[in-house]
């Protein structure tokens, strides 16, 4: 960890302004940023602590949706009564991630911006375009089993590790931001996250100094909410694959985690074989959504695993009859 200066921001606007400075970064829960600083991967010269900002409320929106402040902790969000009742997929995704202690600290904004879990990203001696643009991508020929199968590039194949974001994607949530010049933006998740292309170090479309102020959930979508995470051990591991589903007959929606640089969703594919049984439907949806998948030899299993996982989700739903 390099030496850095620190300030505590009093207002969102002040925070955004302060973080315009070269090498400045926001710090929220710190559960990702501090780890990366200790390993010399993130080297901010100045930290702007946003924890005292009044962005920690969950409020109803005029249209019956929900606004979640950027500083609402993962624990508070997952246990919020309206989230549990109307957006259960979000609760389930959050509690499938990390550990109780980490979720107590982790924030909504920080979770969206947590960085890749590619092992090469975590060692400053090793080639990694995301950490050190132009240094190469060791994962392409090395350990790629945990990494992404779609949306990748020759420069980077890291997957986005967040569980929460997969649920937000299936809910069509939007990200609310405040720029240093005082303007506000609202971004759909697909516009918020960039694909790696030639610039895997740029992960979002946020501009310098742009603060996430919160996340907006549209009115409750109804349906049965499922989050199913498949991993190498029973708990405390990132997803090999995950499925966030809102099951509602032909209108069902699916988003996929652990397989792409951002939560992966293909609304057109969701309609595939919508009247077929679970196995055939899952096959049709995954075949359509992952037609462009480019897995490595080590992670080629993720596509069939995803199909099987979706099939399990559909089958469970068809046998339990729509229980929430």
């Amino acid at each position, binding site marked *: 960890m390099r*030496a850095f200066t620190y300030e505590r921001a009093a207002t969102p606007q002040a925070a955004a302004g302060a973080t315009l400075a070269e090498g400045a970064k926001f710090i929220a829960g710190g559960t990702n940023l501090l780890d990366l600083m200790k390993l010399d991967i993130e080297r901010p010269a100045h930290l702007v602590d946003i924890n005292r900002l009044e962005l920690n409320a969950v409020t109803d929106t005029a249209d019956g949706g929900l606004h979640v402040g950027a500083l609402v902790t993962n624990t508070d969000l997952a246990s919020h009564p309206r989230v549990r009742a109307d957006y259960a997929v979000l609760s389930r995704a959050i509690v499938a991630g990390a550990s109780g202690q980490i979720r107590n600290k982790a924030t909504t904004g920080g979770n969206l911006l947590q960085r890749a*879990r590619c*092992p090469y990203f975590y060692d*400053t001696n090793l080639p990694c375009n995301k950490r050190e643009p132009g240094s190469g991508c060791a994962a392409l020929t*090395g350990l790629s089993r945990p990494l992404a199968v779609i949306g990748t590039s020759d420069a980077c194949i890291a997957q986005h590790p967040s569980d929460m974001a997969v649920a937000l994607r299936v809910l069509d949530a939007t990200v609310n931001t405040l720029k240093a010049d005082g303007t506000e933006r609202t971004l759909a998740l697909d516009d918020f996250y960039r694909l790696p292309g030639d610039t895997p170090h740029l992960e979002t479309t946020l501009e310098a100094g742009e603060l996430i102020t919160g996340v907006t959930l549209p009115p409750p979508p109804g349906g049965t909410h499922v989050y199913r995470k498949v991993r190498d051990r*029973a*708990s405390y591991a990132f997803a090999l694959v995950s499925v966030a589903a809102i099951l509602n007959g032909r209108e069902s929606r699916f988003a996929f985690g652990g397989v792409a640089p951002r939560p992966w969703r293909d609304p057109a594919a969701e309609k595939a074989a919508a009247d077929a049984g679970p196995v055939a439907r899952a096959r049709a949806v995954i075949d359509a959504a992952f037609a462009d998948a480019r897995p490595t030899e080590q992670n080629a299993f993720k596509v*069939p*695993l995803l199909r099987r996982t979706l099939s399990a989700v559909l*089958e469970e739903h068809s046998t339990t009859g729509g229980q929430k």
Partner: protein
Amino acid sequence: MKFDQPATTNPIDQERVVTRPHTRIEGPLKVTGQAPYAYEYRLPEAPTYGFVLGAGVARGRITAIDTAAAEAAPGVLLVLTHENMPAQGASDTPVPQQEDASPQLAGPEIRHYHQAVAFVVAETFEQARAAAHLIRVTYDVTPGQFTLADTLEEGKEPDDAADSVVGDFEEAFGAAAVTVDLTYTTPDQSQAPMEPHATIAHWEGEELTVHTAHQVVHWVKRGLAMTLKVPQKNVRVISAYVGGGFGTKLLFFSDAVLSAAAARVLGRPVKTALQRPLIFNNTSHRAATIQRVRLGADHAGNLSAVGHDTWTGNLPGGDSEPACEQTKYLYAGPNRQIRTRQSELDLPPGASMRAPGEAVGMLAIEGAMDELAEKLGVDPVELRLMNDVQFDPEKGPKRPFSSRKLAQALRTGARAFGWDGRPRTPRERQEGEWLIGYGVASAFRTNLVKPSGATVRLEPGGTLTVETQMTDIGTGSYTILGQVAAEMLGLTLEQVQVRLGDSEYPASSGSGGSWGANSASAGVYAACDALRRDLAKQAGYPYADAVFRSGKVWQGAECTELSELAGKEGVSATGSMTYGDLDEQFAQAGFGAHFVEVRVNAHTAEIRVNRALSVVGAGRILNPVTARSQCLGGMTMGIGSALMEELHVDHDLGLFVNHDLGEYHVPVHADIPDMDVIFLDELDDASSPLRAKGLGELGISGVGAAVANAVYNATGVRVRDFPITLDKILAGWDD
């Protein structure tokens, strides 16, 4: 005291304290944070902090190392590199040694990834770490060999694992009615103990004291003295509390050597804990193996040919992973061939990890037994019973086992576990989404004993103090040594104080190879025996008549209070136990059986363990609470080795890439189910006066095979490439 005749009746047989369940006597200190681990000692003088920088390449030479920015960084007191490292003892291998010189920063040559290339000492830990990141190292990189599978032709018969051949294996195997010929691979694994390798070193004049996390105090004392070129008598080592070792703390690494060297240069204490990401490549690990098991039997299942070949690799001068070892002893069969081939690899050093050999060798032999049973159409429990043998199968009846309760363990376990109710064929049972499978495997671990000593002191007031270099690496040594001493002197456990892990005390076996409890207890036994003789004499009773009970020594109805005999000064005695050749006369090992039920998701192939039972015959169980914990820990580790533990080698860059606990997976609580342990009644007269045997590694030896066999029973897929992850099952279900 020499143990060279089988044990006869002795005071331990009273079993008034020994064999009774006691929770750890140091437990309250640990849970209240008052038991200082190596890094936590407070010295009168403020410490400085060391930080080890690891090499960024696997093989090559340092051509330039620029430390100027680090030296100029705030708080930095010293930067050591190979260019300014004080003179050290030499070693002819890059593998750190147990009790020999193990130099660090010895030259520009890089032999493995994360080998120490610089050591920064600063006023605070954060300053040392920040400065270390400012060091620029330039390497001339040399290609290395990082792939075991590419070296099979080059492997040589290692000194520590000679070929062992009986009869004519090839002929018998060729002629056998039923055979299996199977190849298994096991990955590199990391001990990654909860407490990292850590040291505080400080000098007073020519005298060095190190608080360090180590398993065998006199080894590191000698090794450090040889490395630093100082007389052994000038080195004091304290390892009073150790947070797990699993073999890696049998060696000493950069934290110890560099802290000691830097403390001497600076004239101030230096403390260093290896940062977690360094532990996987800088310290030792269990080397990967490729194993081929060939078994030949008649139609009934009687083995006629037993063959086990292991290929493994290490840096030059490193030990082998003796994965064939158990196959010498486990089952009968007249024709046997056991061979290890070791090649040179440029990966980090391989060394002992919990149950070196058996932990991975049992995965192969016990998997092969399951496949043979299936081919024969016999119950895998029956197949094992059929091939049970009461003597060393290589040496014949002239070398019987001192005690061997394999058959009883299998039968007891089968009954307790409900083996009869198992699914007989793969994929037979499904509950909801989950396929259910049962698996069994034998447990085996060689029994080892080592010389060990202790001092016991009867204090004024009649309490007893035990002092020995023995370590407690989380195993329960404090408690059982207290129990042994209490039993010997007729005291309660509360009346005994145990002090461990200081080189000022008599040398001990230390902890490793499951020898600790039995050997160190025997050392305490010897010291207590000497003290009992002194006290009986003082009381004026013939030793043969003296009975120690209730804080008194008795002759018939007459008695003298121990507190009276202790006087104002106390009375102390020192003793140690050495061993004759009983281990030559008798084959000695712990035996047992593992039963496991798994569930495997029929969609996703996620594997979870439902329940596991170990039945254990390991001689006298000195304390069922700590013994049970040892078994549960071993079983947990065995489940991990079957299902998730794996250091991923990058075959181009030559390192273990997943070098943190986020990506190096071991079981979490949610992975560990309902587990149980049954101890069989057993006394092993030939192992020590305690009649106990090694236990700490028996739990891990075989359980992984039982998991693998259960996974096959559930899924119909045999995975012989460990760990068994869900992708490998899915590959077998090809759809």
